[in-house]
């Protein structure tokens, strides 16, 4: 496998970053996963963290060096992540179950499968054109499908953030699976939270990612989304991967897994403590967390 990958997450103008993103790969398989914890509900970022961490860990355990059945794998890990969130809420006796959107994409043997719940999106770009896109599990999308709204009205609809499927929450998630797509040289897969696709139109996203230079395209899109997001700017997270032929000459910054041992894996996770504000000083959440931690340690040894 040979690919170029880049991920970035920014807190925007919010107090905390409730987005989580990670990728993980072995010699023969690559996993991308993104979760957008839902604000307005308790512990959205916890739900997102649990999901991303759980799915990435499952991948590391099962992809030796690939998983036996990609669709079954995605189905199982997403519903297990959902239950892990429910367990967490139960353990902590939370009055409401935390919720998060999810998109997970697995590439092995040159075929990509993805699954999602909620309104975080996956775009697949081939030869500069949008080849596939997830359908948001939102009421606005349903109204669009039924012809009750047009794209322009949908972009400003007051209920555009309402989603009917997610991990966590009180209802089992409705997970949507893609068919398997054979990747060809130059294909781009991009996954993002609504903080990125909200302010930008699809043409900008597709156009910027079209040439496959994700190292430049991702920060560029993030900058644009942040500018357009203005003072209310949501958390923004974008991960993009360009697929290359194994036979291709070395391209700078690409990852080649050909020389990896069969049981090794590499994981990059972004989220905790990586937003720009957190790097310099402590966020409110971190202070609260530190105090909780210290008190837990004190009482543990009492």
């Amino acid at each position, binding site marked *: 496998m040979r690919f170029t990958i880049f991920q970035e997450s920014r807190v925007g103008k919010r107090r905390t970053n409730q987005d989580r993103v990670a990728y993980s790969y072995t010699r023969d398989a690559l996993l991308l996963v993104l979760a957008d914890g839902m604000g307005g509900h308790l512990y959205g970022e916890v739900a997102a963290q649990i999901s991303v961490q759980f799915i990435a860990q499952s991948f590391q355990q099962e992809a030796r060096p690939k998983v036996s059945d990609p669709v079954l794998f995605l189905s199982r890990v997403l519903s297990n992540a959902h239950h892990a969130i429910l367990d967490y809420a139960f353990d902590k006796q939370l009055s409401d179950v935390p919720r998060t959107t999810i998109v997970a994409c697995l590439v092995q043997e040159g075929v990509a499968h993805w699954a999602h719940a909620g309104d975080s999106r996956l775009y697949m770009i081939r030869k500069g054109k949008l080849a596939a896109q997830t359908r948001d599990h939102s009421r606005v999308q349903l109204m669009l499908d039924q012809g009750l709204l047009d794209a322009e009205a949908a972009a400003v609809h007051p209920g555009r953030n309402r989603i009917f499927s997610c991990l966590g929450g009180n209802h089992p998630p409705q997970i949507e699976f893609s068919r398997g797509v054979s990747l060809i040289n130059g294909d781009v897969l991009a996954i993002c939270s609504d903080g990125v696709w909200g302010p930008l139109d699809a043409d900008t996203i597709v156009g910027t990612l079209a040439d496959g230079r994700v190292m430049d395209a991702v920060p560029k899109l993030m900058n644009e989304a942040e500018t357009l997001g203005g003072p209310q700017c949501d958390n923004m997270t974008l991960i993009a991967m360009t697929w290359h032929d194994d036979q291709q000459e070395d391209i700078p910054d690409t990852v080649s897994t050909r020389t990896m041992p069969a049981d090794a894996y590499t994981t990059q996770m972004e989220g905790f403590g990586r937003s720009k504000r957190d790097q*310099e*000083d*402590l966020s409110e959440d971190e*202070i*609260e967390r*530190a*105090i909780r*931690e*210290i*008190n837990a*340690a*004190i009482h543990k*040894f009492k």
Partner: protein
Amino acid sequence: MATQQNCALPPGFLLDHYRVERQLSLGGFSIVYLAYDQDGTPVAIKEYLPNSLALRAEGEVTPHVTEAHQGAFRYGMKCFFEEGRALAKLVHPNVVRVLNFFRANGTVYMVMQFERGRTLHDYVQKNKGNVRERFIRGVFTRMLNGLREVHAHKLLHLDIKPSNIYLRADGTPVLLDFGAARQTLLSDTPILKPMYTPGFASPEQFNSRDALGPWSDIYSVGASMYACLAGSSPQRSDERVKHDTVVPATKAWAGQYSPHFLATIDWCLQLDPLKRPQSCFALQKVLAQRHREAPPQQKTWLEGLGSRLKTMIGRT
């Protein structure tokens, strides 16, 4: 740079569920109060309040932190948390116990067990020139039990001095003030300089902070023992490196204390970290020997066996 002193919270102030009795001490980094909890149990509460970054004027409660200092103030808070984390894990009779940690008034507070007694510093000042060897050996051997526990948790105290060693009424020592612990993290922040007491800090604390280790705390232990005899700390180690004027304990108090004890102090005060005892245990072993003569010759294994048998018989 001269900085103004912060005002302490007034007596009677209700802090979380503790009532402030009075201020115990005021440092550059914090204020310590004596307070009582709901059950009337006395506690020591340490308030994070760095002089150079936060200012509490007379009659105010929430300290004022300027926008420019916010970052550094929060960063210092991180170090305060480190101290809390360090102490929360330590449960040892010779290490001060943390009871609670909370947030109020725009800053953070650490509640510690209040220990009755006095500091070793006070004791030495009162009994100047008349501190017995047996006493010093006893205090430091037990204090080193606590320090061993600190080192076992991969922490360094880095501010050991007589005023941070507390003597309970029964004479057992308690190690206080872990404000300097882990301050290695701070070495490259100009605003919050590591705070240590010059005369007790090891030379590596001044110049090569990556060379810090248990031996650095050992130097401070040596300097503290030296201060028990001299009544004041030895010359600052950064000046000793340039021009050493410290009279070795073996010379200064020859005849008054056992040569073995004086040699131990000088051993700890070596400028070269490698020439000092390398662990608390090594130092403890030496301090625990209470004899005035030179150590006995190495016994043959048969004699050793004989004496060991004797002790076994003696026990039964």
